């Protein structure tokens, strides 16, 4: 028997080393280590089966069964869990399969995650109760308990909660490698389903989770799509695909694993707005003047100064342009600021903030105009054909008055309108249109900023006041009606924008005016109040004696952390500094309570670590000092004590 035992032990030891080495890799070496591990596992299976067969042949069949269970089963348990027990929803069998697959120390942790994975396929009340009992029995809470809670949530169809819980594992110092592999795979598959390839590529670059063959393949697809450094070659990606399970389902992803093609211009079509972010310059001829941040293709320019422009196939002489995009244009002696021109021929013109498509202009001056398909000779247009915040086809601005110096606030393009016959835009109609467009579409920080600025400009504009005063007199409105109307309108707009911004977690844009200032005030106060209430409720429970289970404490913390992060992202550094002292005070108390009273060392350490990161972000010296002290404590875990080093 020793003839079998020694080689088996050697193979097992080498296999363990190969798996450990694989977990540190994300390159070709991962594939080599995987192949080696596969060969070693095969060797162990052969040796184990031979030992069992020998026992059977010599008549001690019961010993053969013991050898088969002891030497062969652990090598096939992982495969059995993934391909048989989990799809069948066999919670208990998956637990034992994971337990006996030799996942390293604390095998129960991996077993519980396998059981929760099986539960997620076929959720039953009995299975959930069994899992909850096993989880409650494991004190203190660690990464496996959080991961299995996430997989139970996934089984209920709550992918958001599962994602949030699994992401929170980054804060926990207890790290079961096999559990982390499962977590990384769930997150990778989830990101692939959502098409969040950028998120997955960021995980891959940061090597947040040890990779399974499937997550390594998906990360390869993501990094190739995002064109990040370290993306695998086509050959390597195919090798990863061969190594990963579910090859039939992942095969289409190989074809999609290529960097996004640069946008191709249709003949005569608009080139869109360009702001000098270009990086791919092909066949470019650098103009004689100064050029900054520009992308030029096949262009020839003489004596021009260009900033942040993208130009394709144009010939320009003696022009000065800022933030412009020109396609197929010939420009002579023009000065343009923030303009977009497609297929145009311009001679001796000055354009500011204009969008021009397919036009021919000679000796024209245009300010804040958008022109489509027009031909202008010797004309001067100011603030013409402008529709704010909307993408409009064939529409006409209902206001027929003339305006000067108007600019499209939301960068919209007007198609099908007739230049010259367009009524000029006033600030107020522009603001209303921008607002309606903002409310109709998906909220974004840029569109909110455009809307707020449009409103502040409109409400401060003298023409608005004049119009209101004239109408108030005509209608015989009471004294002070103009100011009251402006206040009422500003209040209604601020309420609406604050509601949308709060729901979409947008920050208040910088804008001096009744709407901008009101919105900033409303968002800051509302978010601060909500945060303080949340943290206070959390801490209050400590005094009330309303003790919750450890996993619920953790879920409450990560919910508060998410609210804090959202508020900080929306409100910026100022709100972060305002919110931090209260969060730090309550968080520190809770961390101390969890450590001293509940013996939840890993959770307590995670809270302290987050508080330290925030203290560093806001520059709170006292909190930083305390944070370093707390975070340098030795944290007892099931895998041994962990002590993180800080500078």
């Amino acid at each position: 028997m020793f003839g079998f035992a020694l080689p088996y032990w050697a193979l097992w030891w080498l296999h363990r080393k190969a798996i450990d080495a694989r977990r540190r890799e994300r390159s070709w070496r991962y594939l080599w280590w995987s192949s080696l591990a596969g060969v070693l596992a095969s060797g162990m299976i052969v040796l184990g089966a031979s030992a069992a067969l020998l026992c059977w042949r010599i008549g001690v069949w019961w010993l053969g069964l013991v050898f088969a269970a002891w030497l062969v089963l652990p090598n096939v348990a992982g495969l059995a869990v993934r391909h048989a027990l989990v799809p069948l929803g066999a919670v208990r069998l998956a637990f034992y399969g994971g337990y006996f697959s030799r996942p390293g120390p604390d095998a129960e942790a991996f077993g519980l995650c396998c059981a929760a994975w099986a539960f997620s396929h076929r959720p039953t009340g009995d299975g959930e109760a069994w899992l909850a009992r096993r989880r409650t029995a494991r004190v203190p809470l660690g990464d496996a308990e959080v991961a299995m809670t996430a997989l139970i949530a996934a089984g209920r169809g709550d992918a958001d909660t599962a994602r949030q819980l699994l992401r929170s594992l980054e804060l926990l110092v207890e790290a079961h490698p096999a559990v982390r592999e499962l977590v990384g795979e769930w997150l990778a598959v989830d990101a692939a389903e959502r098409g969040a390839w950028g998120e997955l590529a960021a995980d891959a670059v940061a090597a947040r989770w040890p990779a399974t063959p499937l997550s390594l393949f998906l990360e390869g697809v993501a990094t190739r799509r995002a064109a990040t450094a370290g993306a695998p070659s086509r050959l390597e990606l195919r090798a990863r695909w061969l190594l990963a399970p579910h090859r039939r389902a992942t095969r289409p992803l190989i074809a999609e694993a290529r960097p996004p093609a640069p946008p191709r211009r249709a003949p005569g079509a608009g080139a869109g707005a360009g702001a000098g972010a270009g990086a791919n310059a092909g066949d470019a001829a650098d103009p004689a003047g100064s050029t900054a941040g520009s992308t030029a293709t096949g262009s020839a320019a003489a004596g021009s100064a260009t900033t942040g422009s993208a130009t394709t196939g144009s010939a320009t002489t003696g022009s000065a342009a800022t933030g412009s995009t020109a396609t197929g244009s010939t420009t002579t002696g023009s000065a343009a600021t923030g303009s977009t021109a497609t297929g145009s021929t311009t001679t001796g013109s000055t354009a500011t903030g204009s969008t021009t498509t397919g036009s021919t202009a000679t000796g024209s001056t245009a300010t804040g105009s958008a022109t489509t398909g027009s031909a202008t000779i010797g004309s001067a247009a100011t603030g013409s054909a402008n529709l704010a915040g909307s993408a409009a086809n064939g529409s006409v601005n209902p206001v027929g008055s003339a305006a000067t110096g108007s600019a499209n606030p939301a960068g919209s393009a007007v198609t099908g309108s007739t230049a010259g016959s367009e009524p000029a835009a006033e600030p107020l109609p522009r603001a209303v249109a921008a607002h309606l467009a903002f409310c109709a579409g998906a909220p974004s920080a840029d569109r909110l900023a455009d809307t707020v600025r449009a409103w502040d400009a409109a409400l401060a504009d003298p023409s608005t006041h004049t119009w209101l005063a004239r109408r108030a007199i005509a209608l015989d409105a009471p004294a002070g009606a103009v100011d009251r109307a402006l206040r009422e309108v500003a209040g209604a707009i601020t309420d609406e924008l604050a509601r949308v911004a709060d729901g979409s977690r947008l920050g208040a844009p910088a804008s001096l005016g009744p709407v901008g200032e009101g919105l900033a005030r409303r968002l800051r106060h509302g978010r601060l109040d909500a945060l303080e209430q949340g943290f206070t409720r959390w801490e209050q429970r400590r005094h009330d004696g309303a003790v919750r289970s450890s996993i619920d404490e953790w879920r409450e913390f990560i919910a508060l952390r998410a609210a804090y992060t959202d508020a900080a992202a929306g409100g910026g550094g100022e709100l972060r500094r305002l919110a931090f002292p209260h969060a730090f005070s309550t968080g520190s108390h809770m961390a101390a309570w969890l450590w001293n009273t509940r013996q939840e060392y890993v959770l307590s350490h995670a809270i302290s670590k987050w508080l330290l990161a925030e203290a560093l972000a806001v520059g709170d010296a006292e909190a930083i000092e305390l944070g370093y002290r707390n975070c340098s404590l030795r944290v007892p875990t099931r895998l041994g004590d962990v002590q993180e080093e800080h500078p």
Partner: protein
Amino acid sequence: MTEPIRDNPFFVLGVAPDASRIEIEREAQKLLGMLELGFADAQTYGTPLGSQPRTAEAVRAAVAALRDPYRRLVAELWARHAPKAVPAAPDPAAPEPAARAGLRRALGWRP
């Protein structure tokens, strides 16, 4: 903020912002009669946010609002400066075309 546009008295009554009081009263009476008789044309009114259902209560409320000079001033401000039509902007937060529904399930994970 969509309420001042959606429920704007001028849009409810279908009159121009510069309509006189007599025109407004006449239009309101006409609409109330049409609504009473169940005319299909009177059942809805157009706004920049699309068609809205018109009721007799809304018509009466609109007339009452336009009788008050201050409320008419505010209503005029919205009605006069609202665009004729605002098509919905493309949704930048829509799922990327690269999203693959059911991939998680196909790769052995739930939900």
